[in-house]
């Protein structure tokens, strides 16, 4: 089943690539149609997923026995929402790419291959396979930015590639080190996450390995101060690239921290709480402040990502149930809202061929529906109660307050700053009198564009009003990660840091 989740996009890519190049009108629609299949499958997995801890739908096939590598896939409450999000964003991103004329077939093929790689990263439970996917997704993304991006695309593409490859290079050394430690302690090489979690690492080695993994993921997140590739990549990438970059690729970093750093190096993770926490909070504030002064709308959204992802990292390293669940759900929320914001900016760009805020003004007169969607997504991003962003950031802040009160208080300022940069941008772009003649007769959203945004808007509302659709499935797995950390490191979480402190389970109630 899970193998099919990875294979379906690959097969779709192959099918699209077999369509002759001159039938360019077919490629995009065929790609979208085929991209719905993995979405349907992911929907089924989501529906069939039992809300308990541990991996489900496990597949385990030996890949190369002498090296102890297995094609091991599995899904739990942490990866499940990300997989669904990925499969949802890909057809939307493709649907938003009608303005791409140049080499459209290749574009669809790369996007579908990117999807396969991203799903692979979330499903892999073998570190070798994980690394293969983690690194392989650089290739299609590199092409997407480099071929279909705007003026400085080559610079941005290469910077993106080299930055992230540099991070994962040291992680590769770390993975090799883990496998050989397993060979020393258990007699055989293994790359399976479950095997490597049993290792007894000396604390010094554990810290180094933690650092190697954390660097790779921190660059991906991106955490301050290794975030500089992100604004370039986002600004230059085509809309679909930005949507997938913000929606999914950045989450590979936060997901990696949660899945691998906490599970493999629990003691070092506990030791690193302050480092990671401070970097996260610096990112929150710095990203927000820099976003305020951006003259370019897309760069503004890009810097807002730096800020929002800081919340996720803070939640991951706060070590309370609430913060951890908040981090996981915020992964999804940020993917939805920022993905939508990039879509909106892209739609605006298609009409005006500029992203500079100063070029706009008063366009809500001509584009009321567009303005409505933008304001709605901006509110979701700010974290207005009732919308999805509120759930995640609230959980993170409440959870982090129990263990890292100072950082939580500073981080809360990020919410205020988000209101400033987004609403101020809204004011400058949408309100007032449209002075420039180009801004007076802009076409409002077409049906197609509304159809792309509507599912995201619906999700914003659903998660905002009833977050338990996700939290029910996330909670057991997030608790399991915390249990593992507590067990391995002897960390004492202050009350009420755990779910059990707050809720009385049904069994005990009766």
């Amino acid at each position, binding site marked *: 089943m899970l193998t099919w989740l990875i294979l379906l996009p690959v097969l779709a890519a192959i099918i699209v690539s077999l369509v002759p190049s001159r039938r360019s009108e077919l490629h995009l629609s065929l790609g979208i149609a085929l991209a719905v299949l993995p979405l349907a499958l992911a929907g089924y997995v989501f529906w069939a997923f039992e809300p308990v801890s541990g991996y489900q739908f496990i597949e385990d096939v030996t*890949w*190369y026995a*002498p*090296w102890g590598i297995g094609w091991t896939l599995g899904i739990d409450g942490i990866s499940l929402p990300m997989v669904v999000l990925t499969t949802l964003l890909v057809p939307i991103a493709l649907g938003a790419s009608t303005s791409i004329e140049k*080499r459209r077939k290749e574009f669809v093929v790369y996007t579908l291959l990117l999807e396969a790689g991203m799903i692979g990263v979330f499903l892999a439970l073998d570190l*070798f396979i994980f*690394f*293969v*996917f983690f*690194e*392989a997704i*650089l*290739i299609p993304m*590199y*092409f997407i930015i*480099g*071929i279909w991006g705007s003026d400085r*695309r*080559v610079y941005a*593409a*290469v910077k993106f*590639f*080299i930055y992230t*490859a*540099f991070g994962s*290079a*040291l992680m*590769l*050394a770390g993975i*090799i*080190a883990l*496998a*050989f430690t397993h*060979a020393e302690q258990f007699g055989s090489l293994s790359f399976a996450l479950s095997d490597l979690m049993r290792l007894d690492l000396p604390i010094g080695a554990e810290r180094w390995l933690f650092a190697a993994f954390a660097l790779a993921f921190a660059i991906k997140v991106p955490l301050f101060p290794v975030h500089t590739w992100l604004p370039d990549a986002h600004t230059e990438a085509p809309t679909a690239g930005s949507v997938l970059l913000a929606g999914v690729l950045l989450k590979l970093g936060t997901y990696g921290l949660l899945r691998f750093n906490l599970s493999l190096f629990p003691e070092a993770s506990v030791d690193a709480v302050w480092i990671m926490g401070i970097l996260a909070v610096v990112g929150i504030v710095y990203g927000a402040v820099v976003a305020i002064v951006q003259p370019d709308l897309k760069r503004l959204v890009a810097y807002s990502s730096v800020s929002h992802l800081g919340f996720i990292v803070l939640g991951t390293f706060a070590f309370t149930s609430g913060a951890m669940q908040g981090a996981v759900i915020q992964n999804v929320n940020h993917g939805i809202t920022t993905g939508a914001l990039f879509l909106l900016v892209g739609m605006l760009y298609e009409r005006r061929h500029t992203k500079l805020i100063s070029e706009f003004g008063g366009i809500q007169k001509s584009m009321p529906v567009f303005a409505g969607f933008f304001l709605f997504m901006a509110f979701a991003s700010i974290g207005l109660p009732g919308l999805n962003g509120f759930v995640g950031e609230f959980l993170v802040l409440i959870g982090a307050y129990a263990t890292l009160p100072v950082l939580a208080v500073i981080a809360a300022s990020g919410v205020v700053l988000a209101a400033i940069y987004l609403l101020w941008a809204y004011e400058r772009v949408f309100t007032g009198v449209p002075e420039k003649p180009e801004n007076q007769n802009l076409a409002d959203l077409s049906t197609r564009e509304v159809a792309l945004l509507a599912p995201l808007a619906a999700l914003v509302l659903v998660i905002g009003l009833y977050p338990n659709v996700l939290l029910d499935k996330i909670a057991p797995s997030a608790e399991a990660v915390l249990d593992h950390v507590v067990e391995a490191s002897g960390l004492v979480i202050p009350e009420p840091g755990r779910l059990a402190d707050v809720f009385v389970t049904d069994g005990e109630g009766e």
Partner: protein
Amino acid sequence: MITPEISWLAILPELGLALGAAAVLLVEVQWKPRAQVLGMVVAGALTIALAFTVVQWIRAQDAVAGAGQLGDLVAFSRMILMDGFAVFGRFALLVTTAIGITAGWRLIEGLGRRRAEALALILLASAGFSIMVSANNLVMVFLGLEVGSIALYVLAGMTRSSSTSDEAALKYFLLGSFASAIFIYGVALIYAGTGQFEILAIRSFFSAFIVTSPGVILIGIALMIVGLGFKVSAAPFHAWAPDVYQGAPAGFVGYMAAVAKIAGFAAIARILITGLGDLEVNWLPVVAGISALSMVGGSLLALVQADIRRMLAYSSVATAGFVMTGVVGGATSGVLFYVAVYALQLVGSFAVVAAVSGPANSASSMDEYQGLATRSPGLAAGFTILLLGMAGLPLTSGFVAKFGVFSDAWSAGYQWLVIVAVLASVLAFAVYLRVVVNMYMSDAEGPTLEVPDTARWVLMIAAAATIIWGILPGSLLDLASSAFPL
């Protein structure tokens, strides 16, 4: 009087190649046939040689499994070996030769009546290198090295009209013979220190005796490393590579570089790991240093080249460094796997270079690749796969190869080398991506290239092998790991 027992099987592949070379020349003199006929003769010789290596492989595996005598694998008065390592190396050489000739076929056809000469030289070069990978005796290693190298010197200067080709050939010859001399001097010193030429006997010598004043032996080892390091173009003995890669005819460079790498690394692995394994405390740091210098220096220099051939030359210096991490790791299987997959990628890449800039041409500016993806999408896609493979990105055989040698080096305790290696890999990404940028991210228009079918086939095979062994490397890895030296 005892007549020494001769096991012809041990040299039948080389004999096949050498006779093939003679046959090509005779057929040419007698009948002056079309190029295809000569090609047929060469194909026959290669097929025969390959068939015998298969027989040798089966014997080697039987012997290891206990069904035969291990001693049978040492033949020709203990000069030649038929162990798995040797047979794997031979096989890789023969396949590379076949693909190399196919890749350079356009060039060979264009040589007119001298085409037989070129084909014979290629077969002789392969015969020499084949001896080199299977020699048990250091003098045999030297003989094989020289037979192979001299043929390559001539090949480098094959297009006599071009002055860069002449220059490349002369440079290659002068520096190459100097390196051979250094190597043989090292052999002489080893003989002076141990009284042995045979690699297996040298191993027994060092496991039986502890040398109290090893000065002569250490100098001998150092000189051999220098000589062989030159052949595989490891830094700092790489100065010839960019000029030769740039000057020699494009149709031959891939083949020349690939076979020299296979044979050179086979010899390095056999001499150092098998023969001098007991002295590894002495040579490991040196080889590790060469490896690190090659990886970092090669990648950095490759990054600033404006000519794609010089870029490939410096990146092959870097690759030599990556393979060396496998030598440091002490496991021959990783080295074999790496050189085998890299050889294919190199030949394939130069098939592209020959197609883009003409098989006999000498300059290949990076700019010629601008917009190649729109002009010749198939060529660009195939080349991209090969470049990503050489860069060692996942899902290509290059990644598996790197992963293998890095793991070996890590388990041998050379963690620092692995860290240098993974960081140098990032530099290597940047190197190869420059070409991809030119091909895909430029809108430059140009004429569609006319690509010869032979080059197309070579590219397809090399690209397919890169991907297949990247996703399912088990088959080749199993072969490489059962190809251990005696």
